[in-house]
Structures are given as C-alpha cells and as structure tokens.
C-alpha cells in the first residue's frame, strides 16, 4: 500500500477509480470541482462536464443502467437541481454502482447558502456516507459503490469544504477491474409510471430496511472509549474537531448517517452518562436521535457557520487557549475581478445607464461590490433571466431591466429562462457574458467553449443562433473591451421593445496569456476626477493627492481605463519592475 498526501477531493476520485468506476460526470462547483478533474486524469476512464447537475445525474443513471460503475459530482446547491431525478432513482435503483458525491459548504466560503445535504438523503430515501478526512473519503467511496450494488440504490457521499479541500495521508491500492453488467430490459424497474412506481415504493422500504440492518451490524462506525460527563455522537470533519477539543471524551462517529443506525447509538448512549451531538450546517443527527426517543443534551454550539475545535471546546465548557485580540480598523479584502477582466466594461456601462441588473452565479457576481456596485440581485444558477422578466412584469419602467449571465450558467439553466422570456414576449435585455470559460471554479470548459473535459475539441454552442431559434429577433454581439460600443449596444437593446439578447464575448483575463504593455498615469494630465478609480481595476489606485496611479506589475494593458479617462491622462509606459512596494 502506497501512502500519498491527497485532498479529500483527490481521494474520492482515487477511490472511485480503485472501485472500478468507468464513468464520471458532474457540474463544477466549489468545493466539489476537483473530484471530477482528478477522476478525468485516471487511466482508463471517461469523464465529462454536464451542462447542469440534473443532466449529470441522468447521464449517470444511464451509464449505471448500462452496467458500469459511475461517479457523479456536484456541490450542495447543485443537488437542488438534481433533486428531481434523485427522488425517483431511489425507486428505480441502479444497474452497476451509482455514487453521488455532494460537497456542502458550511460557513459559505463560496456559496449562496449553507444547506445540509443530509436532508436530501432522508427526503429521497438514499443511503448517505460521511467521510471525516481524505483517508476515509477514499475508503467510503469504495464502500459506497459496494452498498449501491448490494442494496440496489444510489448512494450519496457527503463531504464538506474541510474534507474536500484538506489534505491528509491516504493509503492507496490497485484498481479492481470489473466486468460490465449487460443491460436487460426491465420496465417494472426502470419505467416509473404509477403502477410500477407503487410496487417499487414498497420495495424501496424493504431495501432501506436491509441497509439499516447492515449499518447496525457492519462495524463501519468508529467508537472511541473515554470518560467524562458526556459521550459525543458526531460525523464527518466534526469528529476531528471533537477529538481535538475534548480529549478523553467517549465519541461515537457515525459513517452512515442515513438511515440512522439507532441501535448503535442506543448502545453507546447506555454506556455514557449523557449523549451530546456535534454537527454543523443543520441539527440533522440531533433531530433524528431525539425523534427516536434518545435523550440529547443541549449544547450551545453555534447553529450557523463552520465548527472548529475552539468552538466545540467552548460549547462544552472546556478551557480554551487565551488569544490576542483582533486588531481593529483593518480594511477588509474582498475578492475582485482580475485586472483585464472582460466583465468590468459591461458593469461600467450598466452603472452609467442606471439599469436594474439581475445577476447570476460566477465571477461577475463581484460586479455587485463597490466601486462598480452595478448588480442588484444574485439568487441561484439561472435566476437572472427569470427575475428580469418578472421585474419588468411588475411594471418597473423608470429604469431599464437587464439580466447578466455567464456562459456556463447560461448553458446550465439560462436557456429555459430565455425561452420563457421570448415565448411570453417579456421586455428585458439579457446579456450573456461569454468569457470563454467557467472561470470562478477554476477554468472548466462548458458547451460554449468548444472543448471537453477529456481535452478534445467539440462543437461550440452558437448563442446568437440559439437566441434567434428561441424567437428573439434583437440579438447583437459586442466586444467588452470597446466601452463606447458596449454602452451603445446596451442602450439600443433596452430601448427597443420586447426581449433582446447581447452576447458579450471577451476572454477571461486568466486565459488571455499574452499581455499587452501596461499603462501608466500622466500626473500632469490627471485631474483627480476618479472616473477610472470607479472601474475597480485592482491595478488602479488613488494617491493621497487624489490622482490615479497604475501598478505596472498588475496592469495587463486591457485599455478599459484609457477609454473612460476624458483627459487622456492614461498613457502607455515601459515594462513593469519586479519588486512591489517595500518598506
């Protein structure tokens, strides 16, 4: 057995490969993204990005039906999108093993909510395993494939940010080569019309009953003996926080948290003085235990956000190390759109037009932050178009209504919204911010980029043609680095009645490798009007004199600032010096 330092995500990919999985499919989303990227690099497998999580799970269902072990990956909010097939796939069951990796994000490091995916396991009636670190992530994904086949159910593997993006030592083994199970026609299993579904519904209870029996006797859970006033029931990464915060306390770590192995918990409860539960995101375990009549102590753990050893220790009244006080008055450091980002010009124009901008999920969400502050809403993938349509229905006429949506998000769930806008003859403008990549999650390809996860070139969705096919006549294209053209295209689109689409095509600054010469500010000409400052380019700063300055090391020469300066004070300069500002 070899030992490697792997992230939880890499360990899941490795475990799926060791389990003989042949197909991997998912939609990128922090903190789940690297699972599929790592899986795609394994020898002898096929992997693809689907346009959204619902499609990903449906593709996975098909390849499982076709007899090959399949891994499907997404983040917690993606599971909402995939919930429709999931709730029926528990009824149909699987062909070869089907494992769904879902990464939750307690603390919302990069998400719009903190939902606890364990609730979906209970909702959909599918078993759920919770690894606590990289080594367990590998072991649990292998176990999940076995359980999936043994009980004819999809199995969810739920990780969280601190499992997905932590690295730990993992023992790896060889791949288990598996024969493909040939597909057989079985409509009573796969055609979920009411007559068949009612039968499968009863069989589902029977299958879950067998999972429960297995979970009670399997020895898959970990018990750490100890003493003290409470015995802690926990799962996932919280187990490690507990071990650190409460050394010596008896701990029961559950690996399978749905269906809840109640006999295992009762047995533990009888041997400790009092049971307490430590979990984050939701009180899923505590509710389950209490519903089963197990007395659970009230512990003042915070309900929101991530747990840490210190928070656990404090809640249990254990001593915490004294710490220095935080320094006041430190400026926050919000994330920013990169220097040379193509989205900057669009937001600059939208702000000048005083548009109400319904936004979406991606780098351009940062257009909501000052100084651009040109985005009004951000709810979920694809919401921008529907919300713009709704907003215009409400009769907001004093300001133009514009939806902004990225290329990947447009493919994910913008198309249906656009169809609605067109079919119902809504009066909103939709701006597709096509930066040629899924940038926020780290440069993945999507149906608009013309390349697959396996690195092959493929067809590129033609958005203007698609929009016309959906019935929208007013479709234009614009270069976001040409600010006057961008603004006039936007003004023309919002002034024309009916739905309109503008495709703004400009490469993400991280893709554009060749940088033009940086610009600088001519102090003589600069009047300190601060117009360029309001672009929010990280290369531009405001001197104490009020005049602008450009950091030649950061500037990529996109020339957007040059176009906003009325005094021609932004001029070409020489190459950057290497050393930043030093003491």
């Amino acid at each position, binding site marked *: 057995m070899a030992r490697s330092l792997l992230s939880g995500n890499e360990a899941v990919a490795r475990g799926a490969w060791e389990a003989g999985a042949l197909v991997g499919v998912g939609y990128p989303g922090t903190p789940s993204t690297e699972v599929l990227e790592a899986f795609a690099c394994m020898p002898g497998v096929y992997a693809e990005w689907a346009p959204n999580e619902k499609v990903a799970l449906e593709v996975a269902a098909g390849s499982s039906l076709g007899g090959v072990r399949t891994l499907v990956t997404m983040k917690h909010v993606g599971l909402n999108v995939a919930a429709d097939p999931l709730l029926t796939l528990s009824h149909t069951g699987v062909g070869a093993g089907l494992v769904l990796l879902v990464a939750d994000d307690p603390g919302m490091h990069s998400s719009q909510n903190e939902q606890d995916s364990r609730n979906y396991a209970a909702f959909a009636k599918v078993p759920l395993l919770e690894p606590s670190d990289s080594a367990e992530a590998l072991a649990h994904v292998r176990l999940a494939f076995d359980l999936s086949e043994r009980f004819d159910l999809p199995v969810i593997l739920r990780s969280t940010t601190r499992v997905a993006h932590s690295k*730990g030592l993992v023992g790896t083994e060889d791949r288990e080569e598996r024969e493909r199970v040939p597909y057989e026609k079985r409509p009573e299993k796969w055609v979920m019309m009411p007559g068949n579904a009612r039968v499968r519904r009863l069989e589902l209870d029977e299958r879950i009953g067998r999972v429960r029996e297995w979970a009670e006797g399997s020895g898959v859970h970990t018990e750490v003996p100890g003493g003290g006033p409470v015995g802690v029931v926990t799962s996932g990464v919280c187990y490690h926080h507990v071990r650190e915060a409460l050394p010596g306390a008896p701990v029961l770590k559950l690996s399978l948290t749905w269906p809840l192995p109640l006999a295992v918990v009762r047995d533990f409860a009888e041997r400790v003085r009092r049971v307490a539960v430590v979990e984050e995101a939701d009180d899923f375990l505590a509710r389950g235990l209490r519903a089963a009549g197990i007395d659970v102590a009230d512990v003042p753990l915070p309900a929101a956000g991530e747990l840490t050893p210190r928070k656990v220790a404090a809640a249990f009244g254990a001593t915490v190390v004294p710490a220095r006080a935080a320094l006041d008055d430190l400026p926050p450091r919000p994330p920013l759109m990169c220097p040379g980002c193509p989205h900057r010009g669009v937001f600059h124009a939208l702000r000048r037009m005083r548009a109400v901008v319904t936004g979406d999920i991606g780098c351009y969400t940062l257009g909501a932050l000052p100084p651009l502050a040109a985005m009004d809403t951000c709810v979920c993938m694809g919401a921008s178009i529907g919300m713009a349509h709704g907003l215009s229905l409400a009769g907001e006429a004093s300001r133009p209504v514009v939806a902004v949506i990225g290329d990947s998000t447009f493919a994910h769930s913008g198309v249906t919204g656009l169809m609605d806008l067109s079919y119902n003859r809504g009066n909103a403008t939709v701006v597709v911010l096509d930066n040629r990549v899924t940038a926020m999650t780290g440069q993945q390809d999507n149906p608009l980029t013309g390349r697959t996860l396996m690195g092959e070139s493929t067809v590129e969705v033609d958005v203007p043609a698609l929009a016309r096919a959906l019935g929208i006549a007013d479709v234009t294209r614009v270069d976001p680095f040409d600010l006057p053209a961008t603004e006039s295209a936007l003004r023309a689109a919002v002034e024309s009645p009916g739905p309109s689409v503008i495709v703004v095509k400009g490469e993400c600054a991280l893709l554009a490798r060749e940088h033009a010469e940086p610009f600088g500010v001519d102090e003589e000409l600069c009047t300190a009007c601060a117009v360029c400052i309001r672009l929010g380019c990280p290369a531009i700063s405001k001197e104490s004199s009020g005049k602008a300055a450009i950091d030649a090391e950061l500037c990529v020469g996109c020339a957007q600032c040059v176009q906003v300066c009325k005094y021609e004070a932004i001029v070409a300069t020489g190459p950057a010096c290497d050393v930043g500002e030093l003491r």
Partner: protein
Amino acid sequence: MSVTTVVLAGVGGQGTILAGDVLAKVAAAAGLDVKLSEVHGMAQRGGSVDTVVRFGEEVFSPVTDAGGADHLVAFELIEAARRLPLLKPGGRLFVNPRTIEPLPVLIGELPPPEGLEAVLAGEGAVFIDADVLACQAGSPKSANIVLLGAVSTGLGFAEELWREVIAARVPSSTLQANLRAFALGREACMRGECA
C-alpha cells in the same frame, strides 16, 4: 501535545498554497501524520487566503483557531495583522514587509492602515524581505519559498528533505531559483535575524 501548527497567510495569487503543500510533504516524508487545509473559490480573486499545515504523531482537526498557531508566516503586512490572533503566545511570527492594498484602500474609501510594522514588531515579528530576496534568487515569484526557508529554521526537518520536496514540486525551469530562494530565506534567519 505533539502537534505543530503552521499558518501561511497572504493574498490570493501569492503562492501560499504551494508553500503549504511543500511543507506538508516535508512533514509526511519525515514520517509524521499531517493535515493541510485551504479555502478555494472566491478568496483566490485577490482576497485573503490562509493555508494551515499541522503535523505530529497524530493530527485530528485540519483547521486551527485563535491562539492555535505555533508559527505564523505572513506574506503581506495587512494579512499579518489580520491573522495575528491565530498566533500562540510565544509563537514565531515571520512577516514579508510588503503591502498589497485592498480595494477599499485602492479606491480611497478607507485609509491605508498605519503603524502595522510597529505593532507586529511589538509582537516579536521577524521581517524577511522576501520579495527582494526572491529577486536576488532569480525569480520574483519565489518569495513564498524564501519565507518557507525562514520558517524551516525552527521546524527541525533536515535541509536535504526540503530540497528534495521542492525539487519534486516546482517546475524544473525555476528549480535553481527556488533552491536559492530557500537558502536565502534560511540564511536570513541564521544570520540572527530570527529570534
């Protein structure tokens, strides 16, 4: 407890993740249990990032808390000040005395913080001019490895082990510069600049 915690704090793009990875691999190669934790996503767009590396006989939690870091290595002055509460009383503090102004300061909404160096010096900070040393080593991007060289002086791993892991982790075209950067960081400490 025998677990050592190192926090690397900086700004997205400064190379904290690579530095953390090298440190974690050195600890693993030395036969220790190790965990490393980092946050991806929004933070990488020029936001604050910190990477936590913990090693010892048996490591439980991958994260740390206020007062939990034995060594705090800050790649930037404001981040050094922001993460100061993480440092254990008596812990070692390394600071690259460089400022990367956050957007609210760049656009003149908030004043630049003043007197941070004095505050940090009062907390026993060792200032390592990592950007200057990195340029001397031949690659301005190797400032992260300079800082690793500095903190390595108090971690007890053999120098050879560091060099092997760095060689395995950085592109061969920048290897010589990175090894020089590591040596310069170490020397800066050895010369007595590190307490």
